[in-house]
């Protein structure tokens, strides 16, 4: 095993000549095998530490290490004391902070005392000579390898694994097929319905009122001034069974522009009301809420990856990784002046998915 090179005559065995020989010579590839290498000078002489030379310093260091361990004990005790002395008072953030701080500092002291003490001990007081251990090639010795091969050959012979090919191949086949049930078992991770159908509909229905998020109070067209924006959810969504799932699809942003500022494409002429337009708030990139509205430019900004949508041009993408415009919710006004949806969105909202166009 390891021997101390300081006083072993064989320490020069560490030199180059021995190093080149190993049990098996391996191909060096394109490495340049030098013939005229600088020889390894061997270990430099050991330089003793002060603690090796001066017993007084040695004692001083010993006291220092034990002082550190003592500090650790004090720290751990202080941590227990802090646990009791700094209770958490309900509603008092200051007490939470103090509890965390003083408990933590006590534990820190308890840990650092041990840690610094042990490292210091090892560096200044433990035997400081470097030791040398020889490496041996990682591969097993020829003898061991021969034995291993023999065992495999025997195993093969005694079982007939290589010879009985039918047996072997059917076994491999069976092993390959056996995990199949495990894959099927995971089908019921999700309900039976087809996700594609679910993704194509939201909570919005014809005639449903637009309400404020999160209070659920309905919105009158007259509530919107020019340039203002409302975060909107469908009426009744707060009481629905799947509130969050529905909201994740139905959230809408409502803004009012001057009607003449809107570029409206064919077929959407009556989707807005007097410059009021409603767009899905779910980003068509990967689905973050597009919550930032710039009043001057009428741009919507998605905070996740900075896609920008232009409300004046039917929420077309003007920058960023999103491709499709935010889907528009066709709106109208009911007899009491409240804003309502004319229908659900006419296309799936949110991130793209494979079957989106089917």
């Amino acid at each position, binding site marked *: 095993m390891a021997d101390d090179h300081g006083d072993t005559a064989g320490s020069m065995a560490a030199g180059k000549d021995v190093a080149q020989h190993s049990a098996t010579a391996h191909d060096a590839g*394109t490495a340049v095998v030098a013939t005229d290498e600088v020889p390894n000078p061997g*270990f430099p002489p050991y330089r003793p530490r002060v603690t090796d030379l001066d017993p007084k310093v040695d004692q001083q260091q010993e006291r220092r290490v034990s002082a550190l361990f003592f500090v650790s004990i004090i720290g751990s005790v202080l941590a227990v004391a802090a646990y009791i002395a700094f209770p*958490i008072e309900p509603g008092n953030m200051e007490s939470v902070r103090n509890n965390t701080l003083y408990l933590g500092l006590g534990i820190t002291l308890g840990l650092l005392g041990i840690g610094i003490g042990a490292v210091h001990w090892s560096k200044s007081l433990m035997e400081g000579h470097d030791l040398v251990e020889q490496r041996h090639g990682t591969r097993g010795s020829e003898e061991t390898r021969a034995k291993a091969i023999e065992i495999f050959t025997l195993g093969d012979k005694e079982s007939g694994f290589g010879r009985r090919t039918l047996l072997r191949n059917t076994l491999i086949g069976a092993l390959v097929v056996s995990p199949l049930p495990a894959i099927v078992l995971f089908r019921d991770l999700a309900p039976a319905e087809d996700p594609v159908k679910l993704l194509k509909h939201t909570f919005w229905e014809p005639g449903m009122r637009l309400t404020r998020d999160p209070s659920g109070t309905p919105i009158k067209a007259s509530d919107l001034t020019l340039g203002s924006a409302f975060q909107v959810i469908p009426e009744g969504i707060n009481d629905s069974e799947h509130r969050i799932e529905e909201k994740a699809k139905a959230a809408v942003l409502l803004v009012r522009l001057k009607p003449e500022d809107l570029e409206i494409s064919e077929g959407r002429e009556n989707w807005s009301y007097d410059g009021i337009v409603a767009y899905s708030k779910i980003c068509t990139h990967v689905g973050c809420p597009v919550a930032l509205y710039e009043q001057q430019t009428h741009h919507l900004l998605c905070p996740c990856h900075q896609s920008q949508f232009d409300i004046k041009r039917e929420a077309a993408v003007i920058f*960023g990784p*999103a491709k499709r415009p935010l889907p528009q919710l066709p709106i109208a006004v009911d007899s009491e002046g409240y804003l309502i949806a004319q229908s659900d969105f006419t296309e799936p909202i949110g991130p793209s998915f494979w079957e989106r*166009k089917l």
Partner: protein
Amino acid sequence: MTTTPTQDAPSKTRGQRFTSAAANYIDERTSISGAVKELGRKIFPDHWSFMLGEVALYSFVVILLSGTFLTFFFQASMVEVHYEGSYAPLKGIEMSAAMASTLDISFDIRGGLLMRQVHHWAALLFVASIGLHMLRVYFTGAYRKPREINWLIGFVLFILAMAEGFTGYSLPDDLLSGNGLRIIDGMVKGIPVIGTWISYLLFGGEFPGVDIVSRLYILHIMLLPAIIIAAIGVHMLLLIINKHTQFAAPGRTNNNVVGSPIMPVFAAKAGGFFFIVFGVITLIASTFSINPVWVYGPYDPSPVSAGTQPDWYIGFADGALRLVPPGWETEWFGFTWSFNIIAPLVILGLFIAIVAFYPFIEAWVTGDKREHHIADRPRNAPTRTAIGAAGVTFYAVLWAAASSDLIATHFKLSIEGVIHSCQALLIFGPIIAFFLTKRVCIGLQKKDREIALHGYESGRIVRLPHGEYIEVHEQLDEYERWKLVNFTDYKPLMIRPNAEGKITTGQRVRASASRWFFEDRIAPVSQKEIEQSKDGHH
């Protein structure tokens, strides 16, 4: 073993008698003395960079301890509850039981917030130290034979660490974690053919559903930790079998290990270092808040605040999503192809695959089948170091891109400008980094050669008798010189016809790769050169 401990007992103190009796008891039932004999005096070489892996290991232990504490209080359930704990601003608010219990850990359990913060800071340190440890292994070539498998295991650990971090981050079900999951959902949905179904199965229905937290929980506290622990076990086992690499130094060769024995020096140093790592994490956790979920509030799909950031190690993936140019999505055969998601996934996948298989690529190029136990100084493998620098640059640009909005607001730039710069940097940055690093390495090698042959410039100027001024060079002693001259040197592969007299395509590719790697080589100083330079100097 015929003597029983009691026979020689009289000469020993009571403590010694107890220890030897206990040791005897255990050994007679476990043969433990064999393991102590094999391992007790194993040698570990010392270098500051070898501590990075240790930091990773110790922070993982801290994670296990603090995480176990958290499991006693955390409720992995998305059942809606009305929060009734002590944090007044959220009283009465509807939220999931997961979020409510996270608040309870923070505000109603003494030391709970401390443990949450210990857990989170330790997680950040864990991933960071694995990353740095990987860089150390890479830049010193410590992945070469016989350590390629351990590189792969380490790589798997790095991926698992990120997975652990992401699943953990998602557990409290606060606004940020829910938003992170929303992004994952959107990305998964963009995967061709199976994306919609994967997302549907993962979330147990439509996003977010009521299952995801408990599913991630079982991954986070059982499956992933179990795999990580097993992988660390194999990693350590191979470390013992392969033994540690060491840097070139006088007396050290490819066939020995020089350093401290496990018992006692290394054990004391490493054991002490564990306590230091634990202590430092606790110190940070008791003074700096991390992930204050009460500020964000419970998950709600509608609000979001600008400038929020995922944990640092997720940044590169987020950045990759941001740098896709507009319009990368199309419809073919009636199906939607989201290249704005596919492209980042493929590019990151390739990047990660190159990292995983790099050792095998380099081994194929050099054809070197020998074992390597001397860690390279990065400069002595200029092309490898340059490739590493290019990879680091690529990663760094992606990572910076994840903060494009913060960079834009902080430096008052336009977001478009920042994104376009990052896009350009992503392509040209690595190329520039490659050439710069290679030049610098070769420059340093030349300087090493100079110094090995002619010594240091001492700064002392003398005037020679005939009037010329020269600077006196201080020669190195042989110990100092050794570090500069001991490294492996490769030359480009010559194409040679094989046994049938043909030159295969494989050969051609390998030869050009080899030329690319090794054509600008600086050979190590030879003994003859040293002698000649001595003659020249007298």
